[in-house]
């Protein structure tokens, strides 16, 4: 049974950022984007692409060149770099749909100062090797995109009765699900669900371990 606990810990450390220590659900980072950008699946996919495009290269930059930048200029440099990348990425994102930037509004530009980026570069990338930093960036962006895509699918189907712009058969359409207040409520419920799930897994594991110890005696 000790082995299972070890396996669990290993699995948790491997999926750090995706399931365990998810930046949105456990860390509470990038909340405005997770709430306002999840009114449709197209928006969520566009934001996910932006997250991958900004977080992964900047983790690499922070782990390699971060030591040579003065401390008070670091964040400014990262944000400027992220803004430059976003300008470039806006070309492929614009191909998703013609009105995508109108529906995203300010929240596309806000990805340049997104808290996942600033938090992970400050706390992790400066002490880690470039490969580890890139993997961490990939995990965190994957965790962020998973959460916002799942939220966007549910909110779009219930709120508009469509999925990726195409009509879907639903029992009831509630337009107020698209408003920010429901985003807050829904994100809170997702956080509670994630916490409950991890609690359940841990408690089950401890119970198994205790039972194993008793049998061993």
């Amino acid at each position, binding site marked *: 049974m000790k082995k299972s606990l070890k396996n669990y810990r290993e699995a948790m450390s491997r999926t750090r950022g995706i399931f365990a220590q998810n930046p949105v659900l456990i860390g509470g980072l990038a909340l405005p984007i997770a709430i306002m950008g999840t009114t449709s699946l197209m928006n969520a996919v566009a934001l996910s692409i932006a997250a991958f495009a900004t977080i992964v290269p900047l983790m690499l930059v922070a782990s390699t060149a971060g030591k040579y930048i003065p401390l008070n200029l670091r964040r400014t440099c990262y944000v400027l770099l992220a803004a430059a990348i976003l300008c470039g990425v806006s070309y492929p994102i614009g191909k998703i749909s013609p009105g995508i930037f109108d529906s995203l509004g300010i929240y596309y530009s806000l990805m340049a100062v997104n808290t996942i980026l600033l938090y992970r570069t400050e706390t992790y990338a400066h002490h880690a090797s470039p490969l580890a930093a890139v993997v961490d960036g990939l995990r965190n962006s994957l965790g962020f995109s998973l959460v916002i895509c799942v939220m966007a699918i549910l909110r779009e189907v219930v709120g508009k009765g469509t999925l990726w712009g195409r009509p879907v058969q639903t029992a*009831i359409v*509630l337009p*107020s699900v698209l408003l920010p207040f429901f985003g807050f409520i829904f994100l809170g*419920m997702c956080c509670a669900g994630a916490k409950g799930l991890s609690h359940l897994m841990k408690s089950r594991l401890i119970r198994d371990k205790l039972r194993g110890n008793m049998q061993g005696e």
Partner: protein
Amino acid sequence: MKLTHRFPPHIRSRENNVTVMGDAVLALLPLYFMACFFYGPRAAALGILSVLVCFVSDLLCQKLAGRKIGVIDLSPVVTGLIIPLLLPASIPYSIVVVADLFAILVIKQPFGGLGQNIFNPAAGGLAFVTITWPNLVFRYTAPFEKLPLFGEITARLVASPAYQLKMGGIPYRDFTDMLFGNFPGPMGATNILVLATCLIFLVVRKSANGKAALAFLGTVTVFAFVFPRIDGARLQSVFYELCSGILLFGVVFFLNDPATSPKREASKIIYAAIAGAVTMLYRYFGGFEEGMVFAILLMNAFAWGIDMCCEQWISRERRKRLEKKSEKL
């Protein structure tokens, strides 16, 4: 015979959860009687459906939370009875079910159930429905119109006096019609005299705070008198502001909710006065004709703050008085 041993002090108060909620249920039943009188059996059907949905969802949530279900308090019944009374009689059944489910599953149970909810469940459910379907919630049928139990509602839908006030007009209903509730409006919130009787009943039974209700109504009166929406007719304006919308219903059942209002008497009065002002501001500048549910939800969020400020103020006053006394000695 079973004898139980209890230590003193022996409190012989009759009050507990069930009696407080039972008083509210007793006060709500005459409103259902009046609603049935005006709109036929559809009103009763809406109430029964709503109570069933609330009760079952509440029970399921408690089971899910692993709580022991021994004592059944009447709070989901009160929530279920309040929600249809603030909607028009022509409302589809599905909307009432959505409001009930939102009230119990989102507003009440995630915070820990009865006594731990921050916001009033019925007000939350109604606010959600109001934002989602404003066209259906604010269009009423005239009283004494025959409404079928099932199927499409073909009766003519009209606007309420609150809408006429919002648009800058003068409601054409006369004095007695307004008092007896013979005007289009929410199912249970138009019977002004019955509601006033309910308020007196609850104050006498000590389930409601009379001073808080007076503070609320006083603020609304002053507001309507100083800034009348009907030009040049201040008293008329006061009368229509007090009688239209869900104002008096809110005073009786939302303002005195034991779980979400402040605990001290002084803070209750301050809370009620601010709630009155916020309600009037919603009416004057809000997007909808009636914003009392939003005002109540907003004030619920500040209830703890008002309680804390009052506590500090009162303790400071008490300290000053004690210091004066000690100086005299």
